């Protein structure tokens, strides 16, 4: 009689998520649930382990050690709850059902308890708990490893998806070869003010690429010789004691955050350069390309140095000794024997450093500007600066200006991936195989 009414009332109550939602700070709620689950897990583990030990005392031979039965119980308790959460997640993201958080919390408490009761009955000497538990462990491990694939896929998809939307409206060729970059007009056009002065919206990225390459070139001019030479010192000349002192200092240089480098470049180095050039009567912008270039080079020195050091240390001692036996000096050995042997590694290190320089953001955001010019003495900009500029602030994904940031991101991704791949190929193909390798 009352059953259909109560049932429909309960059902509509459940569907109107609001009535059953626990109003608690989310962190507290999650923390409390986790704590309760941990306690339940402990209880389940102990119960089944004790039962198993009791079985063993009766003389039966177990298939696995007792703690495996404990873990079996824990796994069995929480698998249904995890599965239920996945189902709830899909329901919510596809907006089929809005599940109140009471249900979620309850599922993590009630389901494990129910599962525990069922599992306890299944525990017997014949149950091969170890195999079952280890299968689950293997699945968990594989799942963890696949997260990295998910991440790459995520980056690729998020950048690709929006870039495709960008290139639907902007010609790819114009993007790659045009020399004017002024996306600002897009914002005004979106607001219906496209007829105003100076709203020529153009997405020619050549100047941005040029800026990136210019600053990268300056950086590598600093980093390549200093990095390689210091690596040679560390691997050929330095004693153990010197190495123990200098390695940490180089690692210190590597650990400095890029925002700190950017601050230094903008506040100290750029004015220095402006003053230095004005002594020669040349006027330089405060946002020139030289300051970020030099600082970026210094940032890359430890990277290049440690890579080259590893490469050169792995050249076997016997060819060095053969060279000494012929009467060469150390310098000649290094220049004519060791370096050519290590060349693929050094080239690969160089390419990886270039890749790092291209992707660097903070130093250029703080020390370079938004204007792209041809001369390194005038204002300069890079691809990464514009990604940041167009992605911060209120993002409306339909806005062409914001979408342009994604297309720049795609270009950046492709450039760095290409450099990494070439670097790996260089190592693999040209690595010299030594005796006993």
């Amino acid at each position, binding site marked *: 009689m009352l059953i259909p009414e109560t049932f429909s009332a309960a059902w509509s109550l459940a569907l109107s998520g609001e009535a059953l939602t626990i109003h608690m700070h*989310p*962190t507290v709620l999650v923390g409390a649930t986790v704590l309760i689950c941990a306690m339940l897990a402990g209880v389940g583990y102990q119960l089944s382990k004790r039962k198993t030990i009791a079985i063993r005392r009766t003389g039966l031979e177990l298939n696995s050690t007792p703690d495996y039965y404990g873990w079996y119980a824990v796994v069995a308790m929480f698998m249904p709850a995890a599965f239920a959460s996945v189902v709830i997640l899909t329901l*919510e993201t596809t907006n089929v059902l*809005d599940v109140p958080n009471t249900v979620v919390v309850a599922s993590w408490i009630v389901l494990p308890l129910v599962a525990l009761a069922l599992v306890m009955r299944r525990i017997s000497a014949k149950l091969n708990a170890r195999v079952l538990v*280890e299968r689950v*462990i293997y699945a968990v*491990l*594989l799942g*963890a*490893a696949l*997260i*990295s*694939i998910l*991440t*790459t896929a*995520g*980056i690729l998809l*998020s950048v690709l998806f929006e870039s495709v939307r960008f290139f639907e409206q902007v010609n790819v060729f114009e993007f790659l070869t045009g020399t004017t970059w002024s996306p600002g007009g897009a914002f005004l056009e979106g607001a219906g003010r496209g007829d105003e002065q100076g709203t020529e919206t153009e997405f020619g990225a050549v100047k941005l690429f040029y800026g990136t390459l210019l600053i990268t070139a300056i950086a590598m001019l600093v980093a390549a*010789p*200093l990095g390689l*030479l*210091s690596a040679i*010192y560390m691997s*050929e*000349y330095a004693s153990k004691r010197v190495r123990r002192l200098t390695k*940490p*200092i180089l*690692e*210190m*240089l590597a*650990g*400095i*955050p*890029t*925002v*700190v480098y950017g*601050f*230094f470049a903008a*506040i100290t180095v750029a004015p220095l350069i402006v003053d230095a050039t004005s002594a020669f009567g040349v006027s330089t912008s405060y946002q020139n390309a030289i300051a970020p270039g030099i600082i970026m080079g*210094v940032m890359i020195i430890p990277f290049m*140095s440690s890579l080259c050091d590893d490469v050169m240390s792995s050249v076997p001692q016997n060819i060095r000794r053969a060279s000494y036996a012929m009467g060469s*000096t*150390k*310098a*000649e050995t*290094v220049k004519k024997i060791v370096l050519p042997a290590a060349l693929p590694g050094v080239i690969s290190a160089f390419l990886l450093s270039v890749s790092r320089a291209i*992707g*660097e*953001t903070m130093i250029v955001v*703080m020390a370079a500007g938004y204007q792209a010019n041809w001369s390194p003495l005038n204002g300069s900009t890079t691809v*990464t600066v514009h990604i940041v500029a167009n*992605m*911060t602030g209120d*993002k409306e994904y339909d806005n062409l200006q914001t979408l342009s940031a994604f297309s720049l*991101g795609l270009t*950046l*991704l492709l450039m*760095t*991936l290409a450099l*990494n791949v070439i670097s790996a190929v260089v190592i693999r193909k040209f690595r010299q195989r030594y005796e006993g390798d």
Partner: protein
Amino acid sequence: MSQPDAFNQAPSSAERDPRWARESLRLRRRYAKDKRFRFYTVLALLIAFAFLAVFLIDLVRRGAPALRQAEILTEIAYTPDTLEKPLNAFPEDTRDLVSDTVRWAVRSEVGWAEVTARVHFTEQVKEDPSNAIVDMKLTTDDLPFLFDGLTIPREHMLQLIDPSELGRLQQELISDPSLMGKNERVILRGSPALQQFLTDSTGLDEAVVEGAGRLDESDLAGMRFNAEKFGEGKSVEQWVLAHHDVDQYLKGYKYMKPESYPDPELAPITPEMAKRIDRLYDEGKIRLAFNHYFFTNGDSKTPETAGMWPAIVGSVMVLGIVLLLCLPIGVLTSIYLEEFAPDNIVTQTIEVNINNLAAIPSILFGVLGLVAFVTFGEWMGWGNLRTTAIVGGATLALMTLPVIIISTRAALRAVPDSIRRAGHAMGATRWQVVVHHVLPASISGIMTGSIIGLAQAMGETAPLIIVGLVAFVPEAPTGPVDPTTVMPAQIFSWWGMPQRAFQERAALAILVLLAVVFILNAIALVIRARSEKSW
């Protein structure tokens, strides 16, 4: 040939044999080249170190001044006049030298705003006290020149009333039920917005301004002097924060000196002010005290009260989340790849993938974080997760994951195979060998790798800028879904502020950040050195 004696040496080989002479010259040139080459390599290393030294010295030079802050010993006169003009609380010779924040503090200290509102006690008031406030009708009794009368809607009135008053009204009704049904005008304490409006005509929305103005005209709203505290008027002498221009002048920065302006009278510190400041300094009425605000306050629009405490808390929280996410997944992935993975195409893909991830520019992780986590949060109806610690932590976790995986794998590989084989020989399964033998043996390597990864994550700014953690965050976060900022982001936003006094604070924040990063790296080094195990 000459005979050997005290002045002539024996004839050298060079003189005896011309071929040897040429060889010896070549040899000397080669040795010289060798020496020069070695010199160049040492020079390269020294240049790198010299840069580090110059860099650190410059930062310390720029940041150390921020440890101190100028303060002025001045009289503050809390009188009824101060209500209208808080500036008048200060004597003339310090009035233009104190920080803007002190003026606002005086204003809120000397009294409060009051407003007359119409209150109607009904049943609904017990549930939600704002129901007590109803529309306020102004008639010609209130304002003789008001021709048509004016009704101020209750939504506007609610903006003018201090929220604590609503709770008080609710309590009154509950404790005295005879109030039920009463509908009358009551004087209530005004909101901070009303207080600001009454002082400098700002702080209220356009729509509310008219009503508030009328209330002010009709004396139904106004400031009231805190006579309980100050009696007829009291004058206290205390140290207050100086204006940041005074602070910069006192610290000797060239740009603040009046001489560096084309027209010194238009400088922020005019020559007259400069003389006054110097005089007060000599009298001991101005001093440079320890800047404790830097370590206790949050971000602020005025440099003198800006601090980095929320940034520190935010950094710790974000790094905690990074650790929580990265360590389990990273270690599990490494265990899989090192101990369990079969040599097939899936494994190779995963390995190539991880190596590529380690080399992707950090800004692209920010793009992923923005698209994935922020829009995901919106879908799920969790609100805008843009500036929160959890999104920042998740983004950085993805970025640090490859680093941790690579270093953990190296640590696992360093454990010799003989240990594993011994375990298998005793009948253990692969998993048992890993958990009971390989992991404990490699734990120091794993810790070293994670600490270094954390230190890198601590300094990352670019992805967090995209995900929105560079916002104005004046309060420390209390949970992972509160607006957060991190130390490098705070440095970045201070660097971009117009007032130059922020630059020295940015430099000091950099020193704090560097200290933390160096300490973390040092801990990692110590762990690595301590655990040089010999197998």
